[in-house]
């Protein structure tokens, strides 16, 4: 008994020891030359840096990092200090990450990255009065009833109705199949609004198939179902990773409908090992294209590739824009770094509806008081491995 007790105490001591030595260093700091909080604004990002959704969180952290480095290197009077925290795309951990950032002295939040986590954190920031700008959490529930929360990305309904409107206009006679992920807030949100809008526009939906995280390996059944229902247009309101499996399996089956994706599809062309010829003719709504020819995008893609050895996706671009939006808002509200996060929040919330920001993901982005962004989704089609306007 005593031995057991002893070992338990030792185990606990070890854990606490680790906990104790943890309070000092912050390895994820992207410091400016002067890290004292008197001269720079402290901003934080939250997203899954580990776990199966790490790709999105890392993109957000990296995109924000590049923007901060650019701004700090420029002659702008506003400088930022950035810290990125991991939330494993989980609500509880996300709230912990937010609290950790607040302990550090964060004044404005860029994040969380994923919808479920952002919903949990948005309620806390609303009570705390901390300004929150999420780059990529697209559900309306994130911003509903919270005046301090704004989005950089389109809302789910915006994408769902946008897709349905586009189809109604350009391919009204298509027989549409939908394959979506039923245990994912993002996917289900777009699906729900798409179906409502499709019914209103008289589109012909012939098949609806779902999958979950646990059944995301094999799509041959859903594809056979869509094929035998005669679908010639398959709508995929999902992320690009399962979409790449669907394209591969459809190709193996010899089923070649038009595939139509949303912004989550962006990134499929840069997947390592992906045969881009499979994506030939895929259409998607996206705010960002790494192939765009304008100078800002090209500079961003270049720095991103140099620093992270990877091609940025729309999450990185959204986070990059988010930092510039904060900069514009802070300038417009004439905030100073010595203001408390609560004061900054009130000041910035007041100026947000007056802003118009040009970013990588859209020119002339504006916001209404609800927090939703207004920018045009752009429909592109993949030809020869790049996005072109149809």
């Amino acid at each position, binding site marked *: 008994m005593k031995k057991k007790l002893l070992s338990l105490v030792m185990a606990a001591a070890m854990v606490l020891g680790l906990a104790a030595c943890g309070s000092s260093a912050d390895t994820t700091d992207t410091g400016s030359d002067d890290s004292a909080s008197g001269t720079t604004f402290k901003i934080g990002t939250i997203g899954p840096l*580990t776990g199966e959704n790490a790709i999105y969180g890392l993109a957000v952290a990296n995109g924000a990092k590049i923007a901060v480095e650019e701004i700090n290197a420029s002659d702008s009077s506003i400088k930022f200090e950035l810290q990125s925290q991991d939330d494993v795309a989980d609500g*509880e*951990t996300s709230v912990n990450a*937010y609290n950790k950032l607040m302990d550090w002295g964060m004044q404005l939040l860029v994040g969380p990255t994923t919808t479920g986590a952002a919903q949990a954190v948005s309620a806390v920031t609303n009570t705390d009065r901390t300004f929150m700008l999420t780059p990529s959490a697209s559900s309306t529930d994130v911003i509903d009833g919270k005046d301090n929360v704004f989005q950089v990305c389109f809302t789910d309904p915006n994408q769902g109705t946008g897709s349905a409107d586009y189809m109604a206009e350009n391919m009204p006679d298509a027989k549409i199949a939908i394959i979506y992920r*039923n245990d994912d*807030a993002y996917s289900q949100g777009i699906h729900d609004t798409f179906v409502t809008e499709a019914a209103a526009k008289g589109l012909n939906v012939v098949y609806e198939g*779902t999958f979950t995280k646990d059944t995301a390996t094999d799509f041959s059944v859903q594809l056979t179902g869509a094929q035998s229902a005669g679908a010639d247009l398959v709508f995929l309101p999902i992320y690009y990773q399962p979409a790449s499996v669907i394209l591969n399996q459809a190709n193996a089956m010899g089923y070649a409908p038009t595939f139509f994706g949303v912004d989550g599809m962006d990134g499929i062309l840069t997947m390592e090992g992906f045969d881009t010829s499979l994506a030939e003719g895929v259409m998607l709504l996206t705010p960002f294209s790494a192939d765009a020819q304008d100078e800002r995008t090209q500079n961003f893609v270049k720095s991103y590739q140099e620093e992270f050895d990877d091609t940025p996706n729309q999450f990185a671009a959204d986070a990059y824009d988010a930092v510039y939006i904060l900069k514009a808002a802070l300038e417009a509200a004439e905030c100073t770094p010595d203001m408390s996060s609560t004061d900054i929040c009130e000041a910035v919330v007041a100026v947000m509806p007056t802003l118009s920001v040009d970013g990588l993901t859209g020119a002339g982005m504006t916001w209404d008081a609800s927090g939703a962004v207004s920018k045009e989704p752009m429909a592109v089609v993949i030809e020869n491995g790049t996005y072109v306007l149809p």
Partner: protein
Amino acid sequence: MKIRSMKRSTRTNLITYLGVIIAFAATVILRDSGGLSRSLTGQLVPICCYMSMAVSLNLTVGILGELSLGHAGFMSVGAFSGVIAAMSLQSAIPSDALRLAVAMLVGAAVAAVAGVVIGTPVLRLRGDYLAIVTLAFGEIIKELVNCLLVGWDSRGLHVALNLTGDKSIADLGLETEGIAIIKGAQGATSTATISTFTAGFVLVLITLFVVLNLKDSRAGRAIMALRDNSIAAESVGLNLTKYKLMAFVTSAALAGAAGALYGLNFSSLQASKFDFNTSILILVFVVLGGLGNIWGSLIAAAALTILPEALRQFSDYRMLVYAIVLILVMLLTNNPTLRSVLSRLRPGASKEKEAA
């Protein structure tokens, strides 16, 4: 004098209660004087939930001796039924504390019903077969909640199951002022958060009270007799099914109450939170704390909830370090050679060992 004459188990129990009360008081004083970081303050309610989960799972795994890999399923049932109860009673019970209590009771009751439904078939199996069936039930609960659509308006509660994938919250036909409580995979998205640390403390105390009393009661001794030798226990006339089910359902109900508290602590909650990994996490608390060792579960739950947060300075290596710590702790606490090496490092320990 009196303490010495007490039974050993009663003494340990008293110390456990006392420890929890002191820990609570110390935490509250620290928090109110600003000595606790926000990050720790934010974790207080989840820690209470996990403590309660660990103690209740210890009842199944340590005291009943059956491996359960689906404990998060009961937490899920409790969480979502608690959220539904709290959200739909918003106008009927204006007091937050009372509504939270009602929600936790509802969570416990619904989870108890789930415990009976699942326990009746499951407890006929043994060992790893029982474990895999609890895992299966946990996964089934997760998928069913993913299909669940619940809304509330002046006409009452509306519930639908989106089995074919073509229904959405709009199909409930809610009135305009109605509230959507659970939206399928999007889960509960706008819960009013009413959980408090005090409620968590009360929950832990109640859990301890229930489990410790059950353990030291006639029924508890029967349950442990079943664990140690079911055939011998049956031969002296113990009703196997009754006692097994009693422990299993109690454990489920406590997990349900903990789930309700957890669910009402966050404004957003998805069914995918309560997956196999969460069940495993709670099992880790129990095994690390010691099977059947109640206060061990409490410490392990608190330490392992804080650990990943405390490891944040390792950034990308955080979860890797967590894994290594987990493996090392298991090796240190269970390997005889390593343990004797460790005790030799401490001068006082060898004497203790001889005394033991």
